[in-house]
């Protein structure tokens, strides 16, 4: 009996080893395998949540996809994924190969995701199949991959930052819409009245993604880049430090932002303040139109101007090229069908519908924006998007720039809010440590 037991033990031990070997070997071919459940030829499509709720998005997309099925005979299984979960879901899909055919990505992730090699490259033939690369706006196309590489995503929705202001409050105070940073701060100071709980501006100071965007835009206005030509981080230049400090100072020295904004971890909070008259200005992407109106402000009560740069700044960048790209997983079982879906979603007619519903800017050349009835607002956003927007750094470490610099700014805002005074040196130190993190990750 003892003998059989040891033999059993031996057998079970070797069984375990075999099982482990099987796991590792199947893990090894994860990249080359077909994704699952494609016997039917149906496409799976992960859409990002653009509108007020997942169900709203479904209501918008479902008829379009039915139209697509009617045209091509290809069924589409769509899932709308909330913004919080999208990145994790894409990550697990990349890791396991258990992926959809078509997926929406934040366009700022494009180069980071390109680096994984899990996405289909849009070579000449693929571009031809979706209607050619030159139908897209240049700035939008620039976000689709690292410079000099074959893109792995294509523009789907465009977005840009603007400075929203409360017309009534400006008129009452005899103020004009600001055209420079200094004018913006000055107006904000005049409109700030802590006693009444009213502030000149509201910002999402607790959102690392928003913070990272302003770090980039403000640094760009100072004429600085965040990465050198070799893709190494350069976060500690004077321009970057000054740009970020200028943004922090809205709360710290100018005191035009309520310190409680340090807890605002998404755009909804600052928009609510704006709509409720607690803040005279907010900086948001143009799809904030929906949210502002949903919070009870009518469209004629607010105006928009480009996010201003300091007077005499070397550069008048007013936004990064924001928006959503669409990508295909390389292991799709239905490449042609997936390309057809991309072509369909990036055609003028569908773009007009989607732009109107999701309040996004057209990514196609020569298309009229449909996100607003207000011609002036439309013109301003289009001008910013096409001429005054720069893509975020097109390097694989872009996502790490966002998380490290954005988190550093979260922490700095928290310090400011709880009474610490930050100098340029403090900012530089925080950025140095963010830079170390990114450098370490690049290896």
């Amino acid at each position, binding site marked *: 009996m003892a003998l059989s037991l040891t033999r059993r033990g031996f057998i079970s031990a070797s069984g375990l080893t075999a099982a482990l070997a099987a796991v590792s070997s199947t893990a090894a071919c994860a990249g080359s395998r077909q994704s699952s459940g494609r016997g039917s030829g149906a496409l799976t499509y992960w859409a990002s949540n653009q509108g007020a709720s997942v169900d709203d998005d479904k209501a918008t997309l479902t008829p379009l996809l039915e139209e697509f099925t009617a045209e091509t005979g290809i069924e589409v299984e769509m899932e709308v994924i909330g913004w919080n979960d999208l990145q994790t879901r894409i990550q697990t899909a990349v890791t396991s190969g258990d992926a959809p055919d078509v997926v929406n990505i934040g366009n700022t992730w494009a180069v980071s995701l390109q680096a994984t090699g899990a996405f289909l490259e849009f070579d000449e033939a693929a571009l031809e199949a979706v209607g050619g690369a030159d139908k897209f706006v240049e700035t939008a196309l620039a976000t689709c991959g690292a410079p000099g590489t074959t893109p792995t995503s294509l523009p789907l929705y465009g977005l840009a930052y603007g400075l929203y202001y409360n017309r009534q409050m400006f008129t009452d105070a005899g103020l004009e819409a600001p055209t420079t940073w200094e004018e913006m701060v000055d107006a904000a100071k005049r409109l700030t009245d802590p006693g009444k709980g009213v502030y000149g501006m509201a910002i999402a100071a607790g959102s690392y993604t928003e913070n990272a965007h302003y770090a980039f835009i403000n640094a760009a206005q100072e004429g600085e880049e965040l990465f050198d030509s070799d893709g190494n981080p350069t976060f500690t230049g004077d321009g970057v430090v000054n740009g970020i400090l200028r943004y922090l100072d809205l709360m710290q020295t100018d005191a035009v932002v309520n310190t409680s904004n340090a807890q605002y971890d998404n755009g909804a909070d600052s928009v609510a303040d704006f709509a409720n008259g607690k803040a005279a200005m907010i900086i948001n992407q143009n799809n904030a139109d929906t949210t502002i109106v949903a919070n009870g402000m009518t469209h004629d009560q607010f105006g928009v101007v480009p996010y201003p740069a300091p007077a005499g700044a070397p550069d008048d960048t007013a936004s990064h090229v924001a928006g959503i790209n669409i990508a295909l997983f390389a292991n799709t079982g239905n490449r042609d069908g997936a390309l057809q879906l991309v072509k369909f979603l990036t055609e003028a007619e569908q773009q007009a519908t989607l732009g109107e519903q999701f309040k996004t800017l057209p990514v196609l050349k020569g298309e009229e924006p449909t996100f607003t009835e207000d011609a002036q607002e439309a013109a301003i956003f289009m001008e910013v998007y096409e001429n005054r927007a720069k893509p975020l750094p097109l390097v694989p470490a872009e996502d790490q720039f966002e998380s490290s610099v954005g988190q550093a700014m979260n922490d700095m805002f928290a310090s400011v*809010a709880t009474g610490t005074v930050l100098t340029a040196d403090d900012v530089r130190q925080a950025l140095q440590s963010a830079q170390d993190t990114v450098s370490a990750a690049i290896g």
Partner: protein
Amino acid sequence: MTANASTARRPRRPTKRRVRQGWWFPYLIILPAIVFELLIHIIPMLTGIWMSFKQLTKFFIANWSAAPDAGLDNYRRVLDMSGSVGMGFRNSLLITCAFTIIVVGLSWALGMLAAVVLQRPFRGRAVVRTLFLVPYALPMYAGIIAWKFMFQKDNGAINHILQSLGILDEGAFWLIGNNAFFALVIVAIWRWWPFAFLMLMAGLQSIPEDVYEAAALDGARPLRQWWSITLPMLRPVNLVLLLNMFLWTFNDFNTPYVLYGTANPPAGDLISFHIYNASFLTWNFGAGSAMSTLLLLMLLALSGMYIVYLNRRSENA
């Protein structure tokens, strides 16, 4: 007490439904448990350890077989206290240690206090006991979300109460800055002290009343009785309770995750949450696995020492 083959083979009329008992019988009935443990715990854990020796960054995550061996690089980076990764890991560990000690200590103390005052019947005891158990019965995330709502600076109940009591002039931040640590501690204690209370209360019920009577006759004061009777009698309960609470608290992920979401303040950077962010935000799963493996080794060592120490003591007892 041994069920060996000789007792198993009793000549009985064999029925079809009866399992004939051999030496393999206990193995047969633990087999399902072993299979599931292997599939969900053991093999994934070994895979996780294997990952920690690979350079699993975003460049290789889609194709694991091509991931280059990292040797001990991931461990070096995590343990290098001069680099930002190592510093982050160390700070997070220190915060977690402080968090665990405070939460387990205070939860145990509150649980003990409540168990002692509820030891003997009084009017309303059942109601009080029921109320005290609610936080433990509540799904974890529901309680944490309620606290998150209360900890808001401008509209939160906590600041409102502190201001109306005159303790604070203006609202404090609870979810950012240094107070974030205390917010975390308060929520965790709220959740865990009822569990300590539950276990200790049950333990107290197993102590016969006459032991106290005898002690009281000897003139022992209540505090003295607690020290010399209650505590020793509760030892077996305490051992299990403290070990489990230690492990749960140390690995606590839900509290910071639900309380802070993506905006995690440095003061509330518990280790599980830190590793999750390090893995999923930066895609560096190799380094994340190295941190997890170190954490596991630490916990194993600590628990092992604890158990060995206990066994020694109980053998001597």
